[in-house]
């Protein structure tokens, strides 16, 4: 009876107030929460609400944009080509569906009727609410100059703007020149737009009205450093530049400054500021100042209407960053579920998302009465730090070049901690100031308070990260999916890892406590390799794209590594990228200090003959090689060959039957042998013969680092097998196989892998070991450090304990060798890649001058 009553009353309600379809909803007795704005604050508020009481409200969200909820701050990396739109989605359609949320996209709310408690959308949908949440964000400010409405003048606020910019960059300029863009505004947004556009190939000019960039976040010194760094990247930065008009006939053609200068452009991005979007609220008669006025629980002047995000004014303040919005959403959700905590305003900090330029600022750095500065400048490292102190409290900080301590200063600032005891060391950062000199970075993280912010993009505190780890998120990925820390720009990945290891102690294996592959990525070698295979990636740009590389085309550390990983994963299929090879591997010879090359032909097992020796002697004569020497690896090395002569030298060596010795490669180098049973009075087996066979099996193979083999005919070990990557010592009963030796910088004696009875087995185990190394070691890691890292037991488990696995390794090695045993010299001698060996042109300017 009671149930019927409830439904009955509700049905009547629906008839009067809803006027929507949704028969299912008619049966839903829950209060209806309507959210205007499908942006960062609106959706976050709903998330917070669901986390507290998922059953409490029935939710409908209106969004003016035709998209699901995405991370607006990541539009900059999308523009810069570092992320795709899919990667910045915060909540996909499944999230709305899974939580029973109705999403109306591409339709803005145009009116609120507070008496009837309904909203009306642009397309005419009318919907009743019990509680209304306004989260309309901000509108970009457009400076009122002539030409501001011309096609090609845009702002930087949503995905539409990004698409517009990409189209302009793609279109280029006249005559195949790069397109030109003007960005008005040298603040955070403007600089991120300019950075993205210039990475997309446009010639960018930034017009900033103030004398220094980002003057609201940076002091003059840091602003200047920033300006020079951006100029070094090819942008033109005009400060003190006041826009008079935007010119163009039917579309943008340029910007004229008040001093008369005209800057041509086919795209103008206005990023001069934002204004809270309040028109709707104002029209509904709500109290509006600079923003929609709200109390500590985000309630407007109407108790049934709430507001969060950039559209609100709280305690006289409006905000333009995400961190305050997270705090607002918590207070709002607490209020809606009757656990009143209340919002008390936020102190904000800023980071610039321009890859390779680290800028951090927080609080007040304008100085003023009673403020003292502590400044550190380290010009050679490009570091500038300034901490502003008032009455022994940090009130502001500006960091440039080294922002590692940003969170720490920000935490001190927010907590208003007395810094008098650490004042002398404060500027050197947390590691020094908390004692112990260059202390453990973990200690620094341990010292952060629970509410210190770890992930700025998603507003996640240290306490929250630790909580999700305690609740079972035992890996970086798990943390990312449970509390979202480190899931966006990745700059806090290191902090999250330290929290994992602090919280879990020994149990955290440190999947990624290893360093990242290079500064272009937050992934380590192993992650990159795993993802290449798992996602079936086929090219370097694809890897960089999918794994969010922070640079347009990597650096000299990651490109060769990626090239190798792809080559190893896709034998025969992957087309080597020559420009991602170190010079020696690109030139198939060793570069010398004077820019000439040395040439080492292969001599199988160290054996040679008169024909080869004559050919070498002839080459030395013919090309005037200044030196020829016997190497430490039992080969002959011809020095002082010019890059232009290399193909001819190789042609002559090829003619005598010699191929590349790969003395230049991260590849099989030499197989050293001794004379063995054929001649030596102690020899037990044919070590020379086995060495030749091993070299013929393994030559040409690309590896993580160079790889050396030796075969000695008896335990006297004349070929020094026990300091080679793979060493064989022949004994009466067979062959001892040794692995992981190194005679280089850090001498390491091999470990005994096993003993086998036949030569065929020795070859088979050798191939399996090489392939295991190729597949599992990190690029530039030789077998010695690799084995120390993974342990001999791991190698044994793969090669000794798992015969099928061993066969499979050998099979994969033989397969990949099908494609690598073509002599690279022969191809070059026949004219392949001639541009590596020829000049583009030549000049005799003086002669020409004289002739003139």
């Amino acid at each position, binding site marked *: 009876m009671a149930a019927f009553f409830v439904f009955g009353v509700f049905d009547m309600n629906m008839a009067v107030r809803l006027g929507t379809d949704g028969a299912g909803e008619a049966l839903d007795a829950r209060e209806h929460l309507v959210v205007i704005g499908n942006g960062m604050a609106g959706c976050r508020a709903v998330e917070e609400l669901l986390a507290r009481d998922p059953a409490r409200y029935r939710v409908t969200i209106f969004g003016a944009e035709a998209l699901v909820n995405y991370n607006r701050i990541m539009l900059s990396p999308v523009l810069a080509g570092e992320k795709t739109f899919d990667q910045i989605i915060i909540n996909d359609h499944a999230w709305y569906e899974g939580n029973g949320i109705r999403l109306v996209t591409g339709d803005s709310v145009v009116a609120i009727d507070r008496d009837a408690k309904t909203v009306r959308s642009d397309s005419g949908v009318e919907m009743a609410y019990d509680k209304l949440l306004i989260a309309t964000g901000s509108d970009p400010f457009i400076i009122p100059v002539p030409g501001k409405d011309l096609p090609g003048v845009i702002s930087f606020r949503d995905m539409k703007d990004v698409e517009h910019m990409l189209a302009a960059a793609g279109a280029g300029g006249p005559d195949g020149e790069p397109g030109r863009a003007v960005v008005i505004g040298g603040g955070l947004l403007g600089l991120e737009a300019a950075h993205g556009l210039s990475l997309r190939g446009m010639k960018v000019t930034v017009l900033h009205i103030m004398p220094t960039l980002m003057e609201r976040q940076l002091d003059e010194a840091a602003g200047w450093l920033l300006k020079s760094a951006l100029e070094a990247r090819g942008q033109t930065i005009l400060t003190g530049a006041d826009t008079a008009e935007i010119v163009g006939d039917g579309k943008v053609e340029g910007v004229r400054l008040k001093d008369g200068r005209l800057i041509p452009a086919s795209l103008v991005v206005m990023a001069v500021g934002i204004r809270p979007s309040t028109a709707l609220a104002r029209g509904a008669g709500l109290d509006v100042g600079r923003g929609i006025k709200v109390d500590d629980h985000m309630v407007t002047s109407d108790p049934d209407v709430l507001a969060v995000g950039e559209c609100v004014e709280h305690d006289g303040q409006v905000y333009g960053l995400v961190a305050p919005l997270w705090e607002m959403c918590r207070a709002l959700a607490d209020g809606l579920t009757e656990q009143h905590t209340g919002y008390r305003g936020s102190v904000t900090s800023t980071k610039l998302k321009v890859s390779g330029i680290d800028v951090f600022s927080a609080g007040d750095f304008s100085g003023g009465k009673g403020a003292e500065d502590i400044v550190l400048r380290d010009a050679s490292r490009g570091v500038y730090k300034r901490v502003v102190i008032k009455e022994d409290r940090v009130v502001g900080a500006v960091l440039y070049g080294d922002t590692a301590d940003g969170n720490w200063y920000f935490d001190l600032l927010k907590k208003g901690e007395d810094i008098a005891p650490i004042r002398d060391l404060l500027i050197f950062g947390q590691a020094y100031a908390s004692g112990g000199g260059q202390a453990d970075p973990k200690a620094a993280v341990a010292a952060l308070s629970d509410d210190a912010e770890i992930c700025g993009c998603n507003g996640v505190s240290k306490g929250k990260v630790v909580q999700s780890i305690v609740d079972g998120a035992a890996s970086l990925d798990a943390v990312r999916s449970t509390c979202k820390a480190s899931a966006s720009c990745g700059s806090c990945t290191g902090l999250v890892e330290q929290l994992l290891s602090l919280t879990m102690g020994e149990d955290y294996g440190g999947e990624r406590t290893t360093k990242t592959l290079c500064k272009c990525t937050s992934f380590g070698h192993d992650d990159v390799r795993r993802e290449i295979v798992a996602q079936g990636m086929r090219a370097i740009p694809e890897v960089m794209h999918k794994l969010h590389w922070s640079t347009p085309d990597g650096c000299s550390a990651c490109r060769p590594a990626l090239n190798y990983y792809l080559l190893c994963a896709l034998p025969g299929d992957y087309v080597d990228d020559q420009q991602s090879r170190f010079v020696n591997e690109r030139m198939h010879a060793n*570069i010398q200090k004077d820019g000439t090359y040395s040439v080492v032909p292969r001599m199988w097992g160290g054996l040679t003959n008169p024909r080869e020796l004559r050919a070498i002697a002839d080459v030395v004569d013919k090309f005037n090689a200044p030196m020829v020497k016997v190497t430490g690896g039992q080969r002959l090395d011809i020095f002082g060959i010019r890059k232009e002569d290399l193909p001819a030298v190789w042609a002559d060596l090829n003619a005598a039957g010699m191929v590349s010795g790969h003395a230049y490669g991260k590849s099989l180098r030499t197989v050293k042998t001794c004379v063995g049973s054929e001649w030596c009075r102690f020899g037990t087996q044919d070590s020379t013969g086995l060495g030749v066979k091993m070299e013929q099996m393994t030559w040409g193979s690309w590896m993580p680092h160079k790889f050396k083999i030796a075969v000695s005919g008896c335990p006297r070990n004349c070929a020094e097998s026990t300091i080679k990557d793979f060493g064989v010592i022949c004994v009466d009963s067979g062959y001892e196989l040794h692995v992981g030796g190194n005679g280089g910088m850090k001498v390491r004696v091999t470990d005994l892998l096993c003993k086998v009875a036949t030569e065929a087995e020795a070859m088979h185990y050798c191939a399996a070991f090489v392939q295991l190394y190729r597949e599992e070691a990190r690029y530039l890691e030789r077998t010695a450090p690799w084995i120390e890292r993974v342990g001999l037991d791991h190698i044994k488990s793969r090669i000794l304990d798992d015969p099928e696995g061993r066969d499979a390794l050998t099979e994969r090695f033989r397969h990949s060798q099908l494609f690598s045993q073509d002599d690279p010299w022969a191809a070059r001698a026949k004219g392949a890649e001639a541009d590596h060996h020829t000049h583009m042109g030549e000049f005799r300017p003086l002669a020409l001058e004289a002739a003139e």
Partner: protein
Amino acid sequence: MIGDWLDIGAFDEIPPRGGRTVPVIGGEEIAVFRTGDDQVFALVNRCPHKRGPLSQGIVHGHAVTCPLHNWNISLATGEALGADKGCTPTIPVRVDAGRVLLSRMAVLATAMAA
């Protein structure tokens, strides 16, 4: 008649993210680079560290890593990047109708200096 710009060849002759060389008789060799975003730069082919041939380095972004000891050199300014200090002269260069043009004056200057 010789103009202000010297035509040294087609832009396509430089591989993306690669460098080519132009020896100057009586002067210093010039390295011409093409970046991943198809911009062109030219420097004297001599690292400020120990004269490494920059043309043979790995080009990434608008920088080249010297093949000898891995200094990173800005293609736009010739300055060593990061902690290293030093500078290689730049040569004004542009692409016109698919041809790479070097500033005649700057090329001459390298010959004068040598």
